[in-house]
């Protein structure tokens, strides 16, 4: 289909306000009369609270309210396990756990009040190691959870034992990933205003304004979700971290207690120690192969570090466990997962939702296999990739797939054959692939009201011919609302510049689950496309009456309704709306396809799936272990590119974020205490680290996607870690990085190991 807007490179629709510094982020929001809210956080990884005395803080002039377990009900909440409360009850379970919170006239008073709160702790032994945590005599993080096991599962699919018995070769590996933060540049914050009558308005840099009411605010505050009006402020980056935002709860509770507006802004340090960073996992893999490089089966064992509270971690673990089996034709698999409580910051979701970790392990293992079988790693993958029309062993239905094209592109672009022939001398190339969902049905049950995973959109055309789109989905800076505007512009024949998409607001917008699981382009995009089609129909019907020409003989071009046969007979869209005497509107809703997985985790979790292959070229100093990334090359299958500039930005940003994760990041917990407290000890890639990046898109034209598009944000980060590690392996003649991040010490150790 030829398109006017879709597929072109467009600036994001709010670029002008952003480059001129006019965007209002949460910390810029003015809330007259607002108090400053701050939390007192546990300094201990594990401690019993013997006594908590807030009276001196309460007496301090300027303090409106002090909240703690002493004056709040025990109302546990949590997405999978109700294991969390607003404030620590009998124990603090990680350094950063909220023990109390104050609201005061200004920050200075609030800080002083925190210092006046007296807490007598009995320091308890720390559970820091997820393996030691499972020992019979290990201390318990939650007294009622024996063995510190938050979740576990064991599934077998296909004839797995036979597959290993009959295999020509079998290989085993172990991999370990680290605790890494989303490290958006905007620290998290929320504000709240209690209204007489009991309703509360909440503002914040949130990924989902609707869901935070149902999984956190409502249950933790004993209120109904619609007692809250939640309005998004544009997040200064989120990457998964701003889905599960306890600052919203702190602001709302303080505001209710003080009966005043409250701003609760976290410092970067608080954000680094008390949000929900990427889950660390320990993955053991075994795989069985035929001599020609056909995959026969695999066994996966995972121990995942939950940290102190669960939130979405069970779902993340399950994602890590099953994901890569759907990328290759896998006849049989056995998968065991254990999610273990520790006294470390609760882990959570970051861009990739476990797939970064899973892909790192499996795709590293694949290169070891290729080496042992004497096959080219790209050929090994090409031989085993899933294809359009496949149903994977877990029940995933592959509706569109161009991963092989993406890999062939990377191979060609990197001059793979020639470079592969020259490995082992300190310079090498590697690649890796991934599959990702576009929305995940499981979340609709865990986070939403039921299993529907719906999205809806409203498109409103005003008397000036300007168009506003209302969608409950969220822009996190990734350009989601721009994608909606381009889709609607394409449908309606109205120029992109006339579109506006305000941040999400439960007060007037239709329901949407929000930004996670790469769901917005597919699910939100389809809803907005249907709404735009409806609005277009309504515009044409109205114009037909005024122009006395049947609607099907009219079209909209450049914001004007024209008679197809007589283009000089025309009316601007604004005029049509004025003559109609009101706003002209269109509505659309779209329900995601796929299933909620059964107890054995079988089913098709997403409407469709996206793919990518990343390649990396590295130089390794064999004496010092220092790795230099010379270049990155990315091939993606996003179904269809809606906005080329935005899609490229996702790929470049994802690849560099992934490289940063692989090479330099880590909160580095030591006995429950984190090292990363600011951007000088939590390092992320700077402009000096940014390598040259090449990329291209392979459009599989998905049958379900709006104009054929599916998700892109997460496939853009998943494979780069393994691609880099595989390039290091090639450059060094066999140094395999089994523990992240890649540090010179680890590289040297791996070089040593490879020499043996």
């Amino acid at each position, binding site marked *: 289909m030829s398109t006017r807007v879709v597929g072109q*490179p467009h*600036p*994001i629709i*709010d*670029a*002008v*306000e*952003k*480059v*001129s*510094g*006019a*965007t*209002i*982020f949460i*910390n*810029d929001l003015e809330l007259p009369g607002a108090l400053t809210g701050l939390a007192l956080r546990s300094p201990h990884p594990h401690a019993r609270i013997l006594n908590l005395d807030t009276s001196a803080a309460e007496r301090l002039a300027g303090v409106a309210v002090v909240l703690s377990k002493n004056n709040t009900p025990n109302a546990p909440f949590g997405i999978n396990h109700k294991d969390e409360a607003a404030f620590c009850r009998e124990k603090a379970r990680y350094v950063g756990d909220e023990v109390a919170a104050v609201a005061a006239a200004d920050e200075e008073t609030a800080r002083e009040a925190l210092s006046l709160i007296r807490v007598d702790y009995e320091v308890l032994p720390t559970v820091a190691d997820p393996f030691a945590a499972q020992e019979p005599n290990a201390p318990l993080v939650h007294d009622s959870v024996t063995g510190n096991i938050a979740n576990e599962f064991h599934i077998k699919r296909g004839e797995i034992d036979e597959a290993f018995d009959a295999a020509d070769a079998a290989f085993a590996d172990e991999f370990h990933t680290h605790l890494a933060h989303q*490290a*958006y*540049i*905007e*620290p998290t914050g929320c504000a709240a205003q209690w209204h007489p009558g009991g309703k509360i308005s909440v503002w914040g840099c949130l990924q989902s304004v609707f869901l935070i009411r149902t999984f956190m605010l409502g249950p933790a505050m004993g209120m109904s979700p619609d007692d809250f009006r939640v309005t998004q402020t*544009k*997040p*200064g*980056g989120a*990457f998964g971290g701003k889905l599960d935002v306890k600052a919203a709860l702190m602001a709302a509770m303080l505001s209710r207690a003080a009966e005043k507006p409250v701003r609760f802004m976290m*410092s*970067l340090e608080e954000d680094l120690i008390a949000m929900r960073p990427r889950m660390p996992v320990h993955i053991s893999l075994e795989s069985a192969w035929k001599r020609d490089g056909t995959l026969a089966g695999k066994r996966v064992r995972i121990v995942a570090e939950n940290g102190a509270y669960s939130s979405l971690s069970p779902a993340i673990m399950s994602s890590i466990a099953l994901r890569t089996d759907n990328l290759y034709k896998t006849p049989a698999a056995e998968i065991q997962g254990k999610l273990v409580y520790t006294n470390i910051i609760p882990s959570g979701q970051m861009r990739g939702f476990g797939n970064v970790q899973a892909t790192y392990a499996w795709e590293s293992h694949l290169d070891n296999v290729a080496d042992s079988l004497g096959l080219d790693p790209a050929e090994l993958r090409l031989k085993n990739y899933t294809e359009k029309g496949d149903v994977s062993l877990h029940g995933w239905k592959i509706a569109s797939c161009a991963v092989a094209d993406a890999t062939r592109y990377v191979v060609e672009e990197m001059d793979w054959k020639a470079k592969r022939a020259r490995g082992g001398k300190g310079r090498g190339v590697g690649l890796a692939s991934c599959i990702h969902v576009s929305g995940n049905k499981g979340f609709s049950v865990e986070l939403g009201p039921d299993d529907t995973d719906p999205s809806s959109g409203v498109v409103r055309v005003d008397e000036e011919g300007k168009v506003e789109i209302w969608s409950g989905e969220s822009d*996190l*800076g*990734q*350009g989601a609302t721009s994608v909606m505007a381009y889709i609607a512009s394409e449908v309606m024949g109205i120029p992109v510049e006339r579109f506006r998409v305000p941040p999400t607001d439960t007060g007037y917008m239709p329901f949407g689950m929000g930004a996670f699981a790469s769901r917005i382009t597919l699910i939100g995009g389809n809803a907005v496309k249907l709404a735009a089609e409806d609005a277009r129909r309504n515009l044409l019907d109205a114009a037909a009456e005024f122009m006395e020409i049947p609607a099907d003989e009219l079209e909209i071009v450049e914001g004007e309704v024209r008679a197809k046969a007589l283009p000089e007979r025309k009316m601007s869209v604004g005029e049509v709306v004025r003559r109609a005497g009101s706003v002209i509107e269109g509505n659309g809703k779209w329900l995601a396809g796929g299933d909620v997985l059964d107890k054995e985790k079988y089913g098709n979790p997403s409407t469709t799936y996206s793919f990518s292959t990343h390649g990396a070229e590295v130089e390794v100093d064999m004496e010092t272990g220092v790795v230099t990334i010379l270049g990155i090359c990315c091939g993606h299958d996003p179904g269809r590119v809606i906005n080329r*500039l*935005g899609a*490229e*930005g996702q790929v*470049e*940003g*994802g*690849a*560099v*974020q992934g490289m940063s994760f692989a090479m330099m990041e880590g909160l580095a917990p030591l006995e429950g205490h984190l090292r990363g407290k*600011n*951007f*000088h000890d939590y390092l*992320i*890639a*700077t*402009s*000096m680290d*940014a390598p*040259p*990046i090449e990329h291209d898109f392979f459009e599989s034209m998905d049958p379900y996607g709006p104009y054929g598009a599916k998700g892109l944000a997460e496939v853009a980060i998943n494979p780069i870690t393994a691609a880099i590690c595989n390039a290091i392996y090639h450059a060094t003649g066999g140094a395999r990085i089994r523990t992240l991040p890649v540090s010179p010490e680890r590289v040297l150790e791996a070089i040593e190991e490879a020499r043996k």
Partner: protein
Amino acid sequence: MSAYKINLCVNGKDETLDVQGDETLLRALRRIGYVEVKLSCEGGDCGACAVLLDGVAVNACLMFAAQADGSEITTVRGIGTEDDLHPVQEQLIEKGGVQCGFCTPGIVVSAKVLLDENPEPTREDIQRGLAGNLCRCTGYKKIFEAVSAAARQVNEGDGS
């Protein structure tokens, strides 16, 4: 902590304000409404709070407001606004060098200084010029492209 009365000229506007001795320039500017200067790390690591102080780029979180008494401050909005964008801003839009936009005010300040000092920067010059500005969204590539294009735009403008 003692209070000081200080005078600043911010984006051409005279401001007189009372500051505490330990109030940073960043906090003082935001308090009087210049919220386009972003607050993130408050430790000199991210560059989101970059402003020009008498023409020199500084991180506003790293100095006390009292130390800036009598200076001229330029924020991103002193470099260009919606109706009158600086070439760096125009090219950040055109080339897609802005995503969430949180780092952008600081990037604009650093890039402008870079171009003022070096009208024909290479990729390495741009990398170095922006080394103090963290961006978590873009992967930097499109920011580099925007700064190069802005340099060309400025130079062509001069030549005409």
